[in-house]
């Protein structure tokens, strides 16, 4: 097992009486790419700022390599940050921005020049030394911010939604590049995002946070395949979440039908949340289906269709390559290993119904939350 770099122990933080972080415990290991994932306002940025030293916890301890650093000011921490809007110093050139930390340490001139050049070449900005940072594109500013934060060779790099301001194509490129830089430097990255796809594609470890509490910690695949509760299931990927009752191990009843499944360890007749991913549902003729319903909408998504089916008033989402028509009556077939059973939680019943689902709304609310932060 790799070395623990940062340990957060029972961290609590509130602003103006409002609890933002509630009893957070988290270990961050050397050389890992860890992502704090959650909707805006969930406390992930605050958590990052606690590690960076810009906030102090109300309760709990932050350990850095085993040392308590609660009251250590930011400039004494071997941790650097890439800020959300980069926070490049507008009065300094690219070179001087990157050299900032080294000048602060009064490093010799040759060393500064060598290290800055090294960093700039790493982020492919050689030749931009004398540019004003205000004359750079968003992607270039992003790279300067990364170079600036890495030049001091921190043990941990904190990234606060660094890609939020970039357009989609650039964001994909930067995701690749960040991953590459992380591998090359061996620095631990703590990455904050509200974009679940970004989190899934980049991270070694994902920490899902909601309302100031950690919902789940795990590798990308674990978090996707084995969500711990309705919140995680809904936030990561698409999910149909329905109420069910565990009849026995490996047997669950929902939507008026009893299914075989692979999960067990629940009490007899325990109410549970049942998660079925849209891509795991097969469409079959109505009479062959385990469940039956009417198609209410069909959207072409490129690789597949997104089909909304009304089953006894509950709207399911199904992703399929087969074409069906609106108002067509169809049957659904679900494999046992496609059914994931979760214990009831405070999030039960809040997510998983696609009754009000609309692509446009989704994007709109995404844009809004970006703007807010």
């Amino acid at each position, binding site marked *: 097992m790799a070395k623990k770099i940062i340990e957060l122990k029972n961290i609590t933080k509130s602003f103006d009486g409002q609890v933002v972080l509630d009893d957070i415990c988290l270990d961050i290991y050397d050389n890992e790419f860890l992502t704090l994932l959650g909707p805006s306002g969930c406390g992930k940025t605050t958590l990052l700022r606690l590690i*960076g030293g810009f906030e102090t916890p109300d309760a709990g301890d932050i350990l850095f390599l085993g040392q308590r650093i609660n009251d250590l000011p930011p400039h004494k921490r071997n941790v650097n940050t890439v800020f959300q809007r980069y926070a490049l110093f507008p*009065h300094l050139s690219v070179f001087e921005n990157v050299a900032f930390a080294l000048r602060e340490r009064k490093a010799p001139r040759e060393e500064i020049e060598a290290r800055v050049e090294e960093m700039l070449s790493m982020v492919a900005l050689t030749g931009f030394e004398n540019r004003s940072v205000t004359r750079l594109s968003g992607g270039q500013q992003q790279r300067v911010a990364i170079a600036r934060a890495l030049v001091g060779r921190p043990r941990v790099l904190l990234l606060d939604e660094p890609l939020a301001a970039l357009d989609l194509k650039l964001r994909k490129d930067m995701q690749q590049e960040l991953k590459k830089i992380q591998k090359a430097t061996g620095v631990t990255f703590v990455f904050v995002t509200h974009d679940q796809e970004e989190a899934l594609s980049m991270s070694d470890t994902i920490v899902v946070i909601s309302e100031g509490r950690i919902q789940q910690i795990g590798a990308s695949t674990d978090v996707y395949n084995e969500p711990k509760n309705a919140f995680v299931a809904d936030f990561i990927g698409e999910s149909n979440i329905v109420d069910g009752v565990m009849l026995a191990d490996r047997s669950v009843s929902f939507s008026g039908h009893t299914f075989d499944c692979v999960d067990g360890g629940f009490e007899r007749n325990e109410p549970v949340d049942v998660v079925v991913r849209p891509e795991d549902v097969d469409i079959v003729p109505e009479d062959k289906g385990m469940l039956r319903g009417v198609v209410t909408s069909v959207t072409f998504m490129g690789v597949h269709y997104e089909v909304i089916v009304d089953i006894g008033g509950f709207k399911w989402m199904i992703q399929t390559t087969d074409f069906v028509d609106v108002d067509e009556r169809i049957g659904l077939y679900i494999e046992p290993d496609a059914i994931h059973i979760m214990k009831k939680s405070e999030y039960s019943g809040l997510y998983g119904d696609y009754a009000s689902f609309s692509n446009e709304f989704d994007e709109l609310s995404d844009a809004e939350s970006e703007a807010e932060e």
Partner: protein
Amino acid sequence: MKKASKVFTVLMFAFLFAPIAILLLFSFNEARSLSVFSGFSLKWYRELFRDTETLKTVRNTLVLAVCAAGISTVMGTAAAVGIHRMRNKYLRSALDMVTNIPMIDPDIITGISMMLMFVFVSRLLGLANSLSFATLLIAHITFCLPYVILQVLPKLRQMDASLPEAAMDLGCTPWGAFWKVELPELMPAIVTGMIMAFTLSLDDFVISYFTTGTGFQTLPIRIYNMTKKTVTPDMYALATLIFFVILALLLLSNLTDREDSQRIRAARKARRAAKGRPPMSPRRQRALYTAGGALVLAALTASLIFAVTETDDKPQVLNVYNWGEYISDGSEGTMDVVAEFERWYQRQYGRPVQVNYTTFASNEDMYAKLSSGAVSYDVIIPSDYMIARMISEDMLLPLDLANIPNAQYISEDFQGLYYDPEGVYSVPYAYGIVGIIYNANVVDPADAGTWDLLWNEKYAGQILQFNNSRDAFGTAMYRAGLDVNTTDRAVWDDALDSLMEQRGVVRSYVMDEVYNMMEAGEAAVAPYYAGDYFTMLDAQAPTVDLRFYYPDPTNFYIDAMCIPACCQNKTLAETFINFMLSAGPAIANAEYTYYASPNTLVYEDPDYIDEMGPEAMEILYPGWDDFARQYNAYAYRNLDAETLDYINTLWETLKIN
């Protein structure tokens, strides 16, 4: 730009620069006039550089502006940073509100409020000299502060809050982050705030007028007080010089300085980037700091030096308080009496003396300052009725005539005058008689001779009247044969009726504006003092033919040198008075002011008689054989407060009609 907006812009700038062009032009005028250009000359520039008192006030104004701007910039920036970080909402909005007060309050209220406080506190603590450079500086800092804060605060609010965090993240201490990241970002706003503060301080008259005190006068106050003779053209020369200095500075700063406007800055940066120069190297940054720091340091040192020279003056200090333009000041080849005294004293006693010479615009103005108890002067030169008032209020010290042997040269006519019957509190400096000046090219000499000319409807719209209640009422009362010193309100009401009747024919109520108007032919009739007639005669336009006569009865006045109770060095003050009575300075003053001198050393001096000429001698020294009787009958006397208040009310009534 469209044509219409181009024309509009040009017209607006023409409007803005018209008076400046006039100043520029007339600063090269040969004559004293601001309306008639009689030939090109650099005379007024020479005069300006010879005028040590004016140059001193220029220096004072600059020192004050630099100190006020420097201190308010440092304190204001710190305050803005503090307010910005303040968590307590109530305290913050309270501070915001208080910051706005000096901006919402008119200058006159700020000035009065500070004056009231300084005066009250100084009385409470028994301080003699509380109105001084320090109070002026406090007042200026106070009205400059909001401008600095309101420049810096929005910039702070605009600034990305993570900038200082980024700096700390990269190893800066919070203090270091402020210096290296926040301050450079704020610099344009700070510089703008500082320039605004400097500008406001430089141009302020109203607040200074109320808070200025002993020995420290700024340029605007000196100009305002030039009431005895009117603003001299070397002021235009000064304004012209200021204009060119500022123009040069701005051009220079345009070449080297960073600009404020975001857009310009971006463009400039693009240009720099194209040249491959970094927007700001650490060296450049250091240079900027050094410049800013140097300015602040200069301000602090200047104020320190000033404070030191103010308090720790080794040479003795003599504070003289006189009317503006009422002493020979070295202009046009005359004697600089104040400088001459300093030299003479050094020679005579082997010790230096420093004279702080300041001016006032009226007796009441002087009285207001002195009675506040917050100033301290050694020699003052008020008029007769004010001397009487001050004696009755124990504000004057009896003179030790043994120290003023030259008092023996004062004509015997000036003994036994009502205001100082024993002659113990005052020594006459100059005297005058109110006469009527008229333009013979307009006025029929047959209409002249009496006060009625001022009421003559033939010359409606061409008649001037004093813009001062006592003198204006005086003209009406002499005309009607009323007692100018009565406490009978009915008599004053009658005088008001007479002035109301006159109002229809009056062109303007004037004080020193009379010079310009009479010289240029703007008005044809004015009551004023005999000596001033000659000043006007010197500068009259070719189309104007000024004449003078005394109506009967008329006002006599005497201005005399006195020592106020707050005097710090009485012997020195008496030495100064004695010096002023000696032949050289006395003649210089009489020739400079054109006022009649009670000093036999002056009016019996053949050179003086020759210099003035027979006409002037006849008018200035009409040779009444019973001067004292006439004087005691017709001069203004001190009136009680109720009567003065009543006259003031009547005056306001006249003015609102």
